[in-house]
């Protein structure tokens, strides 16, 4: 059933060759057999079965009333709220917490008859690039279980990679959907900032966070994006732009100017094989009639510092609500208010989260605000201006998704700055709020996968879908 598009599945459903119950049962079986990969935090098994039965019945009774995602099974990252279901951000802090409301994205999926099969593991509060910073332990790469799947949406990427669902919703603050997708040989897409409501997405860094999609079929991803996008009264940062028909407008014949960011491909830490494979993809695009335009990018060295100053600042404030007072982890045997705060937060948060809270608190403190936070905001503007300049010349910009292949679990460099620096290719889209898609490059010599990243201007996701569908066609 892997790689079957929803369209094909719906055709089989309509011919009675398969039922939703069978689809769900297959996925549940797969989830059971891949338990060792530690993909899911919670599997909504009984509920998914009940929902499948109900949908099969609904189809019998009123086939004309089926939602557009009828037959689709989706996993959601453990940072996306689903009413009366646990959501923990893979943190001890929220262990046992259930959301009293559904995120706008989940509401819209359910309205179109999708089935949510479970919540996927991730780095705690979406902070990390390896999925090793989870309260529930690391998720493993399905291609090589001793390797990381990437992060922070590692569980989401593996849930698709291992065939336990057809689409995964993740979240992408600095590459958290695209990088694990590239490490797991699947497609990962972060839409424009403001395309999808963040209502019900547990915040890491509010001006960067965006729900993203992981899948294997471009058309399915386009359809799901179409369903969950659009204005929402609960989120003031979501765009009121009309949502285009991403799905029906896919056009693999659209010819584009594709900018090639040489300064990224020539990065000193760039893996040679990934570079060669990426260039090959670009050449195939050229052969297909697209024009390649070499581009330069001056601000490359500022991207990571700028990103980490701003995201940690926002995170330090966003995570203040987890104080042990209203919900979530509360330390035992506290003596006073200060000990309640200190001990609950010390016990509830993991190392990486604490590191980022402290960094963010520092860059916002009086005396440092101007030197760090304000300066980083100015740099963000400069980066955005430079990218805007590039989009006046091209439709799409191509660059690698990551510098290297996934590393072995536990091998992560002890120096966090070095890990942060490896985010350089993905943070640019979040700094600028533009959409980006990672398309798999297939397996390399070590049987590991990587991806090529395509970015378009804000609200021009259709360019990315067109190229993704073309590459899918050529494969």
């Amino acid at each position: 059933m892997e790689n079957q598009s929803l369209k094909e599945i719906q055709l089989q459903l309509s011919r009675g060759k398969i039922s939703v119950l069978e689809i769900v049962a297959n996925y549940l079986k797969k989830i059971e057999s891949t338990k060792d990969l530690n993909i899911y935090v919670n599997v909504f098994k009984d509920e998914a079965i009940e929902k499948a039965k109900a949908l099969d019945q609904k189809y019998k009774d009123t086939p004309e009333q089926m939602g557009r995602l009828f037959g689709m099974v989706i996993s959601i990252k453990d940072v996306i709220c689903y009413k009366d279901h646990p959501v923990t951000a893979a943190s001890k802090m929220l262990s046992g917490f259930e959301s009293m409301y559904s995120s706008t994205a989940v509401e819209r999926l359910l309205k179109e008859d999708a089935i949510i099969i479970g919540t996927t593991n991730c780095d705690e509060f979406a902070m990390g690039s390896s999925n090793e910073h989870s309260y529930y332990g690391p998720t493993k790469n399905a291609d090589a279980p001793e390797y990381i799947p990437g992060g922070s949406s590692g569980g989401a990427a593996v849930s698709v990679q291992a065939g336990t669902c057809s689409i995964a919703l993740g979240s992408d603050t600095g590459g958290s959907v695209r990088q694990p997708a590239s490490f797991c040989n699947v497609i990962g897409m972060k839409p424009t900032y403001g395309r999808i409501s963040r209502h019900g997405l547990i915040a890491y860094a509010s001006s960067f966070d965006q729900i993203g999609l992981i899948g294997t079929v471009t058309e399915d991803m386009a359809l799901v994006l179409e369903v969950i996008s659009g204005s929402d009264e609960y989120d003031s940062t979501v765009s009121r732009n009309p949502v285009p028909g991403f799905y029906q407008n896919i056009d693999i014949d659209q010819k584009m100017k594709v900018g090639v960011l040489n300064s990224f491909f020539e990065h000193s830490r760039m893996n040679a094989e990934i570079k060669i494979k990426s260039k090959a993809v670009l050449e195939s695009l050229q052969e297909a009639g697209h024009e390649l335009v070499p581009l330069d990018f001056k601000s490359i060295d500022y991207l990571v510092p700028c990103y980490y100053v701003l995201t940690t600042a926002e995170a330090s404030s966003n995570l203040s609500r987890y104080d042990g007072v209203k919900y979530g982890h509360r330390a035992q045997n506290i003596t006073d208010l200060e000990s309640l705060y200190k001990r609950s937060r010390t016990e509830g948060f993991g190392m990486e989260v604490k590191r980022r809270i402290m960094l963010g608190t520092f860059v916002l403190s009086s005396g440092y605000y101007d030197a760090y936070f304000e300066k980083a905001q100015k740099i963000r503007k400069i980066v955005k201006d430079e990218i805007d300049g590039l989009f006046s010349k091209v439709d799409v910009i191509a660059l690698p998704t990551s510098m290297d292949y996934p590393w072995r679990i536990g091998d992560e460099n002890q120096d966090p700055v070095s890990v942060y620096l490896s985010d350089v290719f993905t943070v640019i889209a979040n700094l600028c709020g533009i959409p980006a898609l990672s398309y798999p490059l297939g397996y390399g010599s070590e049987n590991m996968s990587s991806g090529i990243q395509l970015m378009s201007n804000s609200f021009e996701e259709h360019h990315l879908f067109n190229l993704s569908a073309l590459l899918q066609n050529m494969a």
Partner: protein
Amino acid sequence: MNSIKISDYEVVVGLEVHIQLNTNSKAFARDLNRFGDNPNTNISAITLAHPGTLPKANKAHIEKALLLAIATQSQINPTHQFDRKNYFYPDLPKGYQITQDRYPICEGGHITFESEGRIKKVRLHHIHMEEDAGKSSHDLSDRVSMLDYNRAGTPLVEMVTEPDLRSPQEVHDFMAYMQKLVRYLGISDGNMEEGSMRCDCNVSIRPKGSTIYGERCEIKNVNSKKFAKQAVAYEFKRQYKMVSKGVVFSKQTLNFNPETGVTTPLRSKEDAHDYRYFPDPDLPPILLAPEYIQTLRESMPMLPEQYVEHLTSKYGLNEYNSKELTREKAFADFFLRLAQKEHDYELLAKVIVNKILPEVKDSGKSIEKQVVSDERLLEFIGLIKSKKVAPSVANQILFPAMLDQSNVNLLELAGRLNLLKSEDQGFLGDILDDILKNHPEELEKYRKGNKALIGFFMGQAMKAAKGKADPKLLKTELVKKLND
């Protein structure tokens, strides 16, 4: 040589006035914004800062803040922005308060009010929008603190004045004017005892004539005009004592205890917060269209001083009555409502000012809750106008009786009390004939030229008529008979 006196010093006060706005819903969530509900009933996931929730600005919050900006001639910023003020406290659900730091909704402006017989002008530094915190109660139990999040997210504006106030009485009168202003604008009920309006008083002292400000102390969260006056007066004396002894004191945050009348330190400089203000990434800057502000300007409710002008020019009322009627917006509204039906505005104003307002004051009833119904009051005025009851009799006898016996028909009541002037004034002739017959000497003197005696005859006649005579008619009749 220690000859300085407190009278050589002046107190310098700047205020931060927090005003809860009377919007239907909260500042950044749809929960009801309502005082007095059972604890923790108006609390959604957003108010409780559950994971994944986001704030959404409330248009009514912005609009009410703009009304205050326009009323105070403050400069409205075309773009304003919300910031986060970060600190931990259990009644602050998000761990930060949404407020405005760098780009408040408006800057500058002034408040003009009357104090101790003089017109006083206080400049404003700015007005910003923010949300209130929840309410902590530490004294309901000796074991735990109680938290009520109903108030969390209540829309506030904070008005920050320049240090332009110079006496405890001015502080009192400023707050009284603010209360009046917000009620006229319809943006808040202004009830200080319910916490709808609170102020922080920044107090310093300096030798009279000095232009340098002294080190200031801030008295937090004062919730009555009277307390503000007392707190500032106390602080003036306290600071004077220190200064006169040569004690150097540093900036402090104080609490005022109304029971003891004393200010005590809340926290000192050492544990001052670093609030780490930064722009709230969840709330994009708000751009105000000039046309929108223009529409608001045109639809501004009348301010107290405009109301006085309106009542004198359009309704021809004297200044005294106009001022009395605008003492509270409810009074003025009451007058205007009745003025649609009763066009003898002067008489209407007189009755409201002389009869209704003292009654409102004495009974403690609000004028809306009605001392007397509209219909009954109009009927009362009607009786005076139709001369069925003499004005003095109406005011002194019928009015209190009308309030006491609210279920008796007014005309019937007047009749029962024997207050109605007789329709048939024929009885006047008999009365007058009697009087002239009984006072032959006076009549003789009058007829010989002592015309002043007419007053004597009028007095006798009025007495005999027991108030039921129309004085004008009586006089005409009397003159006729005297000259016969």
